[in-house]
């Protein structure tokens, strides 16, 4: 079914803060969109407004050409998965998953069939009669997922569903989530503060800050070509260097000159260089630097290098080469074209 979720000028005012400042967002059918940002940026408020759990102060929400923001949440046909799992503690797994179908007055035999199918999809068909407190966190979240999917919702909403799980469980559930969403093709909106989770799962990431959307794009676009410093620093590690700009070229602190791939007319925040894009070698390179610190992480090694008065972070992939020692002089190589960052100007000045 063609579902485009459309959020227009959505605003939410709490007593002393403006949690959402006129959000505009279009989500095409079948897309997996992540709302990413630090705590307090409004991503959960936005999700809850879409769900209908929170009433927006102003603005509209449209689904496939129908306006839904005045509808009560029970009428919106959205499935929602919560950070705290939110399973009904007094009902077993089967009854939990069946609940949404009962609310829709589906016939009993059909309920049984659909519940069984959903449980099989999440791999919990053996646990149908268990109570939530007899299940692990990961299992509970799978039940929550089955419960949300079985009603065949128009949109799936996720509120940091993996935050309460430990790291290994998080990874495996993350994979399953992605596979399932691709298979079922349900439009999904996923809130998280974890940028690696966002990049792993999303077709498109929406970066938020202080109640506004900073920018949006595919994970690759946002990672490699972020428009704003905020995005660059939120997604992964980044070095920001001041450089002399003239036209479409810049002069780096150690004298080398590079092309700018996205020149801007106005003053900017600086040049962004990802630590993994800087080449480091004991002898070969264009800039001189000294190793201040190193950290061996197994699959990669992180170095803190001081060069021409700047402190740079450099990451090298594993391999067999020796770890460079503290105090050792090294040579750095930068990529041929560099990326310029702009300052994000909020639409409204903070109160």
């Amino acid at each position: 079914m063609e579902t485009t979720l459309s959020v227009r000028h959505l605003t939410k005012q709490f007593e002393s803060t403006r949690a959402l400042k006129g959000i505009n967002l279009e989500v095409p059918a079948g897309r997996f969109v992540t709302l990413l940002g630090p705590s307090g940026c409004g991503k959960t408020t936005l999700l809850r407004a879409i769900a209908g759990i929170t009433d927006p102060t102003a603005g509209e929400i449209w689904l496939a050409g129908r306006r839904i923001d005045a509808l009560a949440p029970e009428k919106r046909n959205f499935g929602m998965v919560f950070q705290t799992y939110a399973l009904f503690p007094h009902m077993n797994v089967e009854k939990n998953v069946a609940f949404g179908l009962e609310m829709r007055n589906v016939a009993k035999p059909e309920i049984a069939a659909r519940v069984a199918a959903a449980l099989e999809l999440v791999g919990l068909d053996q646990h149908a009669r268990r109570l939530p407190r007899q299940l692990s966190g990961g299992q509970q979240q799978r039940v929550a997922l089955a419960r949300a999917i079985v009603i065949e919702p128009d949109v799936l909403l996720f509120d940091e569903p993996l935050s309460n799980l430990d790291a290994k469980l998080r990874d495996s559930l993350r994979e399953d989530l992605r596979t399932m969403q691709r298979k079922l093709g349900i439009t999904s909106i996923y809130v998280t503060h974890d940028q690696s989770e966002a990049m792993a799962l999303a077709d498109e990431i929406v970066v938020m800050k202080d109640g506004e959307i900073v920018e949006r794009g595919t994970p690759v676009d946002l990672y490699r070509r972020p428009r704003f410093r905020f995005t660059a620093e939120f997604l992964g590690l980044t070095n920001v260097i001041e450089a002399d700009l003239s036209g479409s070229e810049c002069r780096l602190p150690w004298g080398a000159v590079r092309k700018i791939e996205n020149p801007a007319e106005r003053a900017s925040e600086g040049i962004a260089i990802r630590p993994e894009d800087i080449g480091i070698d004991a002898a070969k390179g264009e800039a001189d630097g000294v190793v201040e610190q190193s950290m061996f992480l197994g699959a990669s090694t992180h170095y803190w290098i001081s060069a021409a008065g700047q402190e740079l972070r450099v990451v090298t992939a594993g391999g067999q080469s020796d770890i460079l020692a503290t105090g050792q002089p090294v040579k750095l190589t930068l990529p041929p074209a560099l990326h310029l960052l702009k300052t994000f100007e909020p639409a409204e000045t903070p109160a």
Partner: protein
Amino acid sequence: MAIGMRHSQRTQLWVSLGLYGYLILTLFVPLGVIALWAFYDPAVGWFPPDIVPRSFSLSAWGDVLSDRHILPSALLSFFVSTVVTLLTATLAFPTAWALAQFPFRLKRAVEVFVLAPMIVPGIVVAVSLGEIFFGLGLAGTVQGIILVQTVGTLPLMIRILTATLEGIPNELILAARTLGAPPRVAVMRIALPLAWPGFLAGGLLNFIASFEEFEKSFMVGAPQVQTLAVRLWSYLGGEILVLPTAAAVTFLLLVPMLIIFFIAERLMKEDVMAAGLGKL
């Protein structure tokens, strides 16, 4: 479709109207009527079908204030309630501490026993202690009333304090002890201050319960010693119904209670009391 007021805002309005309507009908109107009774003019009277007295006077208040029994009863009630509250708090704290912090085999039995005075109808306790105290010469004394009321207030205080103390992490006491404090000092200087919400909540509840308590004070104290609540009974349940005096005494009873109540509302967290009462 233009939505003037959102769906949930409309239900909220109806709900608010219903709630306040209930309050007005069941609370403000009756209290208002009693207030009118306290100010009516006995020379004229206030008979049906008049909804409001035809003339007002302060004579009922004059009677009350000049009555040599009423003000002493009021002072007595304050005194008794204060002592009961302090006594209950002192007795309850060590027991609550044991229940909250120590593991021991008979704990469930102790919990049930502490609960028992709330299960057995209070009048049974009142009547039996009434007879025992009569034999001991404690009947009709202030001490007797204090002792019997404490039986009623102690279970709740123990439960509230236990719930509060369970919320204090044991690591705090251990940290104090590693810093050199002997166990009792650690408890008095760390746990006791941290338990103050429980003391406040329980103390206020106890004071109120004691001030308005009737059955036990009646069985043990009357007729020699009468708390204010018992005194009120004599104007309502005796030979004749003395409405205006009763109305005035009612206000003497109610106003301190309401003041304490609103202070408590400011200070107290409501879940403390629900925690103490919430599970049997």
